[in-house]
């Protein structure tokens, strides 16, 4: 493990220090309260009845059997929803309960509350739903061609967006093309969906303890469905056991509140793992055709592409996911001309929405596979073709937007290239069978194992796009020598709780930082997604702390007859930069309290026009990945040996946290490359369990070597870019490229145009 970090001599716990998490001790001791751990006297359990069909008309629902089960306290269906019947992040097209039709396997039809989870299961089994099964719409191309009746009043097309840039008729001397597919990936957070709803006496309001990515957006949708004004719905962040996009949408929030309001007692719902697989949105399965035109020396002339994203039954965030996909067609490379056609469509598959990488994962697998084909066609190496086309600050994207972000693409590539290759011998030829692809299962033979190297490089937009009013709120109170910060930012594991304290210590020169409850008693912080919280909530905390510092300086200046502009923080002291005054911050505060709340916004963005032109994104981050793999070509077994990465992080505010994001993201990229897919057949999910949905374990993860590329971004409030998504974006194509390379060494040519790569894709 190599981390490039040259800074020294910093006050512990300030920016740039690898400070440890304030919630760390509670988490290792088992005392940290996750949303599933929240218990309260008099609480009952809730559970959900779900559709067994991908498409069916509900003829009738008879809940009388459920009421006969002893211990049942409530049974609710669509007719029990007092407010809006539907919700959704972008458009409210998803029913709280299916009423007339069900549109995917797992769609909620009813909920029950009872004294024991087993009672709930018996009650659900006693509800009789008569379905008239309909022919499901499963093929996105059929939806595009309009060959299936609308499965929703809003129609079967969720979004169609074109990009036409430069000369659409331009051609290159060299042309490569391919059609790439990605399976449906699950976020597979460990902490299952869980919520606790506590009704106000009299039923006029509700408090929901919930693991979510965005409290205020949840509240907006929940309140509308409950028919309550937003102030009567208070949300408190329950401990979040991972998110990765799967907690952006409503799942059990409305159901839990409805049950609690109905029976006037607290209600808990916790999904099972099987249920969780159908209870949240997934990464969009995609089919992407790309054709690259280039000069004989490998300069990209034009890219043509067609994206088809299967959005499943409801809209969720399919529209912005598609936008992200198509606007990242070119990857981190210059491209003067482009013609791109993008579709996100509705089907009777599981609804898809946000997952780490948000549309760019799909684009990157396609454009990086293309770059390797282009390299081959031009007789260039994988590194050379990428360096020749590497994007720079000031380049124009295919949307017409100029890249104003620091864009150290070439540096990422060369720094990753300079990282040491693994020392581990090919195929465990040192005699350790555990190092064979497939492990010590007596299947693979070291003599049949070949090693390959592959590359993936990515660009990822940061924050929200297309004119969204994206902001974060933070409150800073300085009293004595203690800073108390309040924000509604969802800590989902990424470590904002540690960064927030580091910001306050750096700006205000205090050591003790307390974090207030994370709830809706303050303004929104926006979503913990799009790699945005360090920039956005970090920016808000920074701004609130600076405002408090100004007031502190005004106070000190008035007392000492100084110009406040002469004052600064030095360590834990306020000093006069032009004189001798030096006093501890704690003494400077002297019985006063300073309290400031700030909203922080990034610069505005715009919608795309009909040709896909417009400044739709805010900022960009880049990463390069080099994968080394061992492959048994005959058995189709793969062992990833090493991932080397250089990532554009702007400024590493907490190098240890950055490293954790990089290693964790790579694990998810590896999963998509060779392991993870929700296997579906005719709309039915075939592997909704951790036995059958394969997640990388400690034996699957390779050595990771890291170089942090630190070029502080002047746009970013702290110079730091979001770091969460890039690691899972280009690691996937790097691994697949390495498999292709290993097979080439075995004398086998495989396109491997689909992820996850299965043994049969390699061996057959």
């Amino acid at each position, binding site marked *: 493990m190599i981390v490039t970090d040259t800074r020294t001599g910093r006050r512990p716990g300030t920016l740039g220090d690898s400070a440890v998490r304030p919630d760390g001790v509670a988490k290792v001791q088992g*005392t940290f309260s996750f949303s599933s751990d929240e218990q309260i006297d008099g609480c009952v359990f809730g559970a959900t009845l779900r559709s067994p069909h991908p498409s069916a008309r509900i003829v009738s629902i008879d809940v009388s059997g459920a009421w006969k089960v002893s211990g049942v306290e409530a049974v609710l269906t669509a007719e029990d929803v007092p407010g809006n019947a539907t919700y959704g992040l972008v458009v409210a097209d998803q029913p709280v309960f299916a009423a007339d039709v069900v549109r995917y396997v797992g769609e909620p039809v009813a909920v029950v509350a009872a004294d024991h989870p087993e009672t709930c299961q018996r009650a659900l089994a006693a509800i009789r739903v008569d379905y008239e099964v309909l022919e499901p719409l499963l093929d996105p191309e059929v939806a595009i061609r309009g060959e299936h009746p609308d499965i929703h009043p809003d129609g079967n097309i969720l979004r169609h967006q074109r990009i036409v840039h430069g000369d659409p008729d331009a051609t290159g001397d060299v042309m490569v093309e391919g059609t790439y597919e990605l399976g449906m990936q699950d976020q597979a957070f460990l902490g299952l969906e869980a919520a606790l709803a506590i009704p106000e006496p009299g039923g006029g309001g509700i408090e929901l303890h919930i693991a979510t990515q965005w409290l205020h957006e949840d509240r907006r949708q929940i309140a509308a469905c409950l028919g309550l004004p937003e102030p009567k719905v208070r949300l408190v962040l329950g401990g979040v056991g991972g998110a990765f996009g799967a907690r952006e949408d409503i799942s059990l929030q409305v159901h839990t509140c409805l049950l609690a309001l109905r029976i006037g007692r607290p209600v808990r719902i916790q999904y099972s793992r099987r249920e969780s697989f159908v209870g949240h949105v997934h990464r969009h399965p995609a089919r992407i055709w790309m054709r690259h035109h280039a000069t004989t020396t490998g300069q990209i002339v034009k890219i043509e592409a067609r994206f088809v994203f299967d959005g499943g039954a409801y809209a969720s965030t399919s529209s912005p996911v598609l936008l992200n996909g198509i606007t990242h067609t070119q990857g981190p490379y210059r491209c003067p001309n482009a013609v791109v056609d993008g579709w996100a469509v509705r089907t009777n598959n599981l609804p898809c929405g946000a997952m780490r990488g948000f549309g760019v994962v799909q684009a990157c697998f396609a454009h990086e596979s293309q770059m390797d084909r282009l390299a081959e066609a031009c007789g260039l190496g994988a590194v050379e073709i990428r360096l020749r086309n590497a994007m720079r600050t000031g380049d124009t994207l295919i949307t017409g937007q100029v890249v104003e972000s620091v864009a150290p693409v070439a540096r990422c590539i060369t720094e990753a290239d300079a990282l040491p290759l693994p020392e581990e011998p090919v195929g465990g030829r040192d005699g350790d069978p555990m190092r064979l692809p497939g492990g010590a299962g007596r299947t693979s033979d070291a003599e049949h194992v070949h090693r390959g190297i592959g590359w993936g490089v990515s660009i990822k937009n940061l924050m929200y796009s297309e004119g969204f009013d994206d902001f974060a709120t933070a409150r800073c109170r300085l009293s004595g020598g203690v800073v108390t910060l309040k924000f509604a930012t969802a800590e989902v594991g990424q470590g904002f709780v540690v960064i927030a304290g580091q910001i306050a210590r750096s700006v205000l020169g205090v050591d003790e930082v307390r974090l207030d409850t994370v709830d809706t008693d303050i303004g929104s912080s926006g979503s913990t997604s799009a790699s945005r919280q360090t920039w956005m909530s970090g920016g808000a905390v920074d701004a609130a702390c600076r405002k408090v510092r100004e007031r502190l300086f005004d106070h000190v200046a008035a007392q000492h007859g100084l110009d406040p502009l002469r004052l600064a923080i030095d360590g834990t002291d306020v000093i006069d930069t032009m004189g001798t005054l030096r006093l501890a911050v704690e003494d400077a505060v002297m019985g006063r309290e300073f309290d400031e709340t700030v909203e922080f916004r990034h610069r505005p963005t715009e919608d795309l026009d009909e040709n896909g032109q417009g400044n739709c994104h805010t900022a960009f981050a880049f990463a390069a990945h080099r994968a080394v793999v061992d492959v048994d070509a005959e058995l189709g077994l793969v062992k990833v040996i090493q991932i080397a990465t250089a990532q554009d992080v702007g400024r590493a505010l907490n190098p240890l946290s950055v490293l954790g994001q990089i290693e964790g993201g790579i694990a998810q990229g590896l999963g998509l490359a060779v392991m993870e897919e929700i296997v579906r057949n005719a709309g039915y999910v075939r592997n909704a369990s951790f036995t059958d949905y394969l997640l990388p374990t*400690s034996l699957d993860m390779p050595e990771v070597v890291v170089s942090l590329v630190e070029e502080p971004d002047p746009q970013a409030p702290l110079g730091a870019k979001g770091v969460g998504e890039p690691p899972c974006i280009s690691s996937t194509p790097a691994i697949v490229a390495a498999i292709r390379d290993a097979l080439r060494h075995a004398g086998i040519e495989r396109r491997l145009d689909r992820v996850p790569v299965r043994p049969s894709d390699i061996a057959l």
Partner: protein
Amino acid sequence: MPEFYELQINGSAHDVHDAWLGESLLYVLRERLGFTGTKSACEEGECGSCSVLVDDVLVCACLALAGSATGKTVTTVEGLAATGTPSDVQQAFVTAGAVQCGFCTPGLIVAAHALLTESPEATGQEIREALSGNVCRCTGYGRILEAVAAAARARLAAGAGSIDDRGET
């Protein structure tokens, strides 16, 4: 059917009253006795989030019936060290950055304690194998492996490698 049965957990006796005998050890620990440090994430023994020690053997509490643990000693993550004074393994996880969302962490802590009790000199590949039954979705395992290796090194350096420090009191 008895009206209650007794479980020995973290050194203390706990009576479980009026319970359905089909309840897993995980359910009884979490829902009836309030030991919520043990987590439920897959319910089929694949992810290790519910790892506990039953008579010093590492088991998935979701796969064991609570009734089968009567007459045995159960150690959960809460029993490894007093609240507020983390064990060496727990502190190593915090220091090394092995904790993100933290949901898998208690199970990994219990598994790591079991490993270092059984194999105090565990390194590299042996640690990977021992922890491969514990799924972590956040960290990619790098810092976890480093934390366990660091704890092992520290114990050996302190000459305490053979001492069972599970801290049952």
